[in-house]
């Protein structure tokens, strides 16, 4: 009860020194608002990354022709996977399905006077099962399209918007590298790939048409996607594929792989390491800002102790113990930083919403509130304890005689 009475003194003091309280709260508001926005931003980024990893598929393995480290998909020009390779993988234990495709990046695409560049993939009908992505309108590539080397295509929504605007593209023709293709369907929306590429700026054509008419690669396959039966066994299957391909490509033990395997684990590592530096920087800013507020608090509270020596001396004279003075000043600091925290979080959320409106990834969760409130209280404690102890350590006889 006595502690509550002493804390009550702190409330009175705050109201009696409004300008001082305002300045402290302002410093904390800036810091906590920054912290809230950054927490929301990093959580939004992480959520987006998780979504991108999900887009890749937890049960998928992508085999790229050519060795080296992970980058974009391999193109038809560097294709070295054979039909025999694909059949061997199809027959492996734990493999659900395999789809082969030929890839060309940034191919020029025209419709009338409209021009864009798109990824063009030559695909088999089971591509839609392997990517869990079919036509949202119209039809997908069929076996007969592949048999007849048809010049038909399924168009991604970004490419469709670029070339057709609001016009329905189905039934219309486009030119891919000056070869005319009829649009038979629109691809389901997918968003960004794990490496940040627009998965909707994609045009799918029959595999055989791509190999023989567009990309001049009739013998080899540039890329394949494998779906495993049990997502928990994806790394085990990837290891089997690697061994099988090394054997079939007759690679000596000292030779490096002439193919690359992308697994969900690998993709996740790659994306996380890319965002790690940015996240570290953001957290640094997030932590520094409230600390600056804390330093402002400490400065103002030290000035307050200096100005209020006589009051402290009087309180000691009428019976306040050192701990009562500590509680009074610390409660004052914590109340001010907590108030700053509440206002800061509210402002942070408003700013976060404004940023969200501009399309940036923002995620506001209870953790944002918890971190901001805990941090503001911690700052009140951490930066308030020194002035509070200094006030309590004053000699009462000397303090009361201060002018």
């Amino acid at each position, binding site marked *: 009860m*006595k502690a509550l009475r002493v804390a009550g003194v702190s409330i009175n003091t705050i109201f009696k020194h409004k300008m001082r309280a305002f300045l402290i709260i302002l410093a904390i508001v800036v810091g906590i608002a920054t912290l809230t926005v950054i927490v929301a931003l990093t959580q939004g980024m992480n959520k987006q990354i998780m979504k991108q990893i999900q887009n890749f598929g937890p049960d998928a393995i992508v085999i790229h022709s050519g060795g080296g480290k992970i980058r974009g998909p391999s193109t038809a020009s560097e294709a070295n996977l054979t039909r025999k390779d694909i059949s061997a993988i199809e027959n492996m234990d734990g493999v659900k399905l395999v789809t082969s495709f030929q890839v060309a990046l940034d191919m020029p695409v025209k419709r009338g006077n409209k021009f864009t560049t798109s990824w063009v993939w030559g695909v088999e009908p089971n591509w839609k099962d392997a990517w869990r992505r079919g036509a949202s309108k119209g039809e997908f590539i069929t076996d007969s399209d592949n048999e007849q080397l048809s010049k038909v295509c399924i168009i991604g929504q970004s490419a469709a918007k670029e070339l057709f605007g609001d016009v329905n593209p189905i039934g219309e023709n486009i030119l891919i590298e000056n070869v005319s293709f009829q649009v038979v369907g629109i691809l389901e929306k997918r968003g960004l790939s794990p490496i940040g590429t627009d998965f909707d700026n994609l045009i799918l054509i029959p595999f055989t048409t791509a190999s023989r008419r567009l990309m001049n690669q009739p013998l080899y396959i540039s890329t394949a996607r494998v779906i495993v039966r049990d997502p928990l066994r994806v790394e085990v299957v990837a290891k089997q594929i690697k061994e099988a391909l090394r054997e079939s490509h007759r690679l000596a033990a000292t030779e490096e792989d002439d193919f690359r395997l992308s697994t969900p684990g690998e993709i996740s590592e790659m994306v996380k390491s890319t965002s790690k530096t940015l996240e570290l920087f953001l957290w640094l800013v997030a932590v520094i800002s409230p600390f600056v507020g804390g330093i402002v608090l400490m400065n103002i509270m030290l000035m307050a102790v200096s100005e209020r020596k006589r009051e402290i001396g*009087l309180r*000691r004279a009428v019976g306040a113990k050192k701990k009562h003075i500590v509680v009074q000043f610390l409660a004052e600091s914590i109340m001010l930083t907590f108030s700053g925290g509440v206002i800061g979080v509210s402002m942070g959320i408003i700013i976060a919403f404004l940023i969200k409106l501009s399309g940036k990834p923002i995620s506001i969760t209870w953790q944002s509130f918890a971190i901001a409130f805990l941090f503001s209280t911690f700052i009140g404690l951490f930066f308030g304890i020194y002035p509070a102890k200094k006030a309590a350590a004053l000699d009462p006889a000397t303090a009361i005689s201060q002018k």
Partner: protein
Amino acid sequence: MIEFKEITKSFTSGTVRTDVLKGLTFKVGKGEFAAIMAPSGTGKTTLLNILGCLMKASSGSYFFEGIDIETLNDDQLSDIRNKRMGFVFQTFNLLERTSALDNVLLPLIYADNYPVDAKQRATKLLESVGLKERINYKPSELSGGQQQRVAIARALINNPSIILADEPTGNLDSESSKEVMNIFKTLHGQGRTIVVVTHDINIARNARRTIFLKDGRVEKTEVIS
């Protein structure tokens, strides 16, 4: 009630040592109204600080109501000040921007038990010092004499064993000084123990006994019958 035995107090600044009190010995009995009289700058405030447990002596012994003050720790000294002593200072020492009523209630914040009738008690005390109409006034809205009366009410709120006053009329005009000393006389008449430290012989004459200090020692004691 108060027993000072060979109390000394020295202050050291760098290599210079100043002996302010040089072996003070005196007693103040329960219910007594005593004045301690000494010229300015001769350690009156130091003496009052030791009497009020705000400062410890360099040597000697101080017994207050039979308790050896020199053996108490900081928290125990705070308890003694809170429960058994009331202070009246020359400069009033009221909290600014705080009403007379809240100033009077100040010591109760640190009391073990906050009385349920605290506000009534404080109001009654302010009435008894003639400030019935001023209980919600802030110090800046009160005259010097009125501020000192608030300070006296504050000194009485915990019903202390003793009231210690340091030059209580030092900042007041003669009329206000008279009013304040009359309050002390009334309180003494009610059986309270009062010790006033002053350099003014006219103020000291209000007490029943005056202890004269000279060169940090008791020079003489005069009793007014």
